């Protein structure tokens, strides 16, 4: 074995290895089974994800650096990998009926979902610029294809092309920024970057690199003014893919953002804090105001997701262990509420109804009270009303901002939440107060029912009893906050 590598390195990436092998297995099963037995693929995919989850569990208390300093196997990575696997599980559960209605190729679909998850996992544990970038690329390429998966559908084609062009452009920006950081420091390791750059004088090139990295990541988290792709892509992509994209890709990009800025560039906080302050305020305001006028649910949820990128950036601006904890909590809760809302939209898709217009929800309560009540909870949770999960998440985010002295940011956040309630409640108005929509009956497949139950349980239980989640996030955030504190102590 080459120097620096050991058998432990393979053990440390065991979850990723299981996932890679599982993805290949899905491809093989796809070619070996007859067309009628394709339902098997969903089960294989679920099995792979559960196996990966089981392989991940022993790493809850591990805090080590693997593969010659390319990967950090720590609490932070563990938490985010948990989030990604949960997201992928719920997405796969809600996909099977949609795939049948649309007549998609199941094998490639599940394979790409697993590949995207793999990329996200490397983004969360990568502490080397190149590793992080390759993880991001693995995820992004899978999503480019998934966005265009409805081949005969023009909107889906448009979504894929737009996402690919803008995604490639933003990745280029990010890579250019990273190369400048490398040029200034001579290292691609995020932790070494912190120590090397902290001892150097600041120059203009550093600012250029920083701005490019911020812009590149801004595209990925869909923060204003880098959000233009989001509504079109979210609307055109197949609905389960939109759900996966809006939760998984966002969580992974935030994991990358935290790694880069909290671990790699903590001493530049006075420079990137104002940038993220502006991005946060613009994302919240533009996202919420634009969402007010949407008549398509997927577009509305896209703007809502832009606004949520703004809320989450508050945690970055706070630049504290509490801020990181709040972001991690919010991202996990966001999995439940956003995936839940999309699950209901997926359910509305029938043979004769596209099901992504707001009017398709009309009178849902009278025909399908369970689905309507679930949707009510998801909407209230996204809006941040107590006693739902969304309220707890926002509460921690805003209190982290206040603790770090960003009182105005918290005020703007609260005002924006109030604005957002209008369009979330409008969904409820359609479900309760409008004439019933036409169309064939809605059938929730068993797997869809499980997906909805998981999402609803998460959104309700963590709203009422958030303590275990809070403790897990706080413990996981320490591995990243600790480094930031150590480095800032070193530089002053």
């Amino acid at each position: 074995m080459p120097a620096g590598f050991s058998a432990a390195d393979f053990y440390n990436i065991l979850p990723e290895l299981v996932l890679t092998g599982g993805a290949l297995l899905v491809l093989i099963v796809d070619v070996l089974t007859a067309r009628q037995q394709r339902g098997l693929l969903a089960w294989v995919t679920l099995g792979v994800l559960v196996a990966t989850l089981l392989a991940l569990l022993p790493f809850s208390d591990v805090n080590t650096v693997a593969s010659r300093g390319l990967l950090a196997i720590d609490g932070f990575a563990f938490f985010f990998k948990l989030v990604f696997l949960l997201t992928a599980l719920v997405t796969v559960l809600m996909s099977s009926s949609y795939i049948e209605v649309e007549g998609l190729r199941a094998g490639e679909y599940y394979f790409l979902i697993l590949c995207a998850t793999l990329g996200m996992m490397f983004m969360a544990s990568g502490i080397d610029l190149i590793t992080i970038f390759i993880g991001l690329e693995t995820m992004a390429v899978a999503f480019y294809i998934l966005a265009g998966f409805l081949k005969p559908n023009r909107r889906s084609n448009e979504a894929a092309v737009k996402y690919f062009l803008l995604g490639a452009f933003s990745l280029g920006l990010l890579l250019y920024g990273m190369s400048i950081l490398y040029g200034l420091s001579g290292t691609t390791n995020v932790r070494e970057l912190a120590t090397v750059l902290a001892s150097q004088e600041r120059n203009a090139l550093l600012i250029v690199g920083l701005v490019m990295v911020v812009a590149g990541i801004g595209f990925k988290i869909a923060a204003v003014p880098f959000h233009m792709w989001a509504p079109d892509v979210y609307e055109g992509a197949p609905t389960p893919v939109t759900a996966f994209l809006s939760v998984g890709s966002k969580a992974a990009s935030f994991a990358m953002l935290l790694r880069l800025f909290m671990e790699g560039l903590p001493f530049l906080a006075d420079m990137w804090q104002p940038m993220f302050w502006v991005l946060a305020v613009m994302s919240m305001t533009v996202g919420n105001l634009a969402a007010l006028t949407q008549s398509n649910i997927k577009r509305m949820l896209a703007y809502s997701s832009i606004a949520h990128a703004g809320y989450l950036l508050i945690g970055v601006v706070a630049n504290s262990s509490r801020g990181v904890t709040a972001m991690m909590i919010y991202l996990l809760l966001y999995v439940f509420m956003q995936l839940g809302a999309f699950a209901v939209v997926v359910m509305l898709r029938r043979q004769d109804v596209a099901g992504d217009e707001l009017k398709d929800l009309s009178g849902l309560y009278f025909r399908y009270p369970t689905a309507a009540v679930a949707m009510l909870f998801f909407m209230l949770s996204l809006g941040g009303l107590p006693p739902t999960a969304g309220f707890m998440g926002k509460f921690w985010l805003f209190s982290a901002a206040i603790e770090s002295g960003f009182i105005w940011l918290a005020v703007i956040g609260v005002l924006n939440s109030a604005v957002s309630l209008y369009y979330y409640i409008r969904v409820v108005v359609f479900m309760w107060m409008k004439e019933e929509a036409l169309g064939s009956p809605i059938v929730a497949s068993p797997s869809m029912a499980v997906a909805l139950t998981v999402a609803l349980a998460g959104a309700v239980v963590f709203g009422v009893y958030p303590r275990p989640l809070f403790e897990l996030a706080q413990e996981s955030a320490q591995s990243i906050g600790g480094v930031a504190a150590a480095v800032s102590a070193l530089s002053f």
Partner: protein
Amino acid sequence: MLEAYVPILIFVFVATGFAIFTLIMSGLLHPERYNKVKLEPYECGIEPETDARDRYSIRYYLVAMLFVIFDVETVFMFPWAVIMDELALFGLIEMIVFLFILVVGYVYAWRKGALEWA
């Protein structure tokens, strides 16, 4: 630190200047005597039969893509073979893993009919 880049800057200027100079000079000096054969696109000496802007089978695309993948695989194997004695068993296993992943893709493409030409 920036002084170290001065030679590169000079190189860029010389390269750009040379290209512009040659283009202008040949534009000024060359004789203009066109005929039909001269205006044809050069394709390894074979006479073109139809216009180049034509629809062609999507299968060319698939085959080209498969070709690139396995071409790159071979390119990757050469440096590996050169330092094989240093990498030893570890390198061999890594290469087997790499080839296994490619073979899965190959079997997939094959079974899905990407290699059928009809």
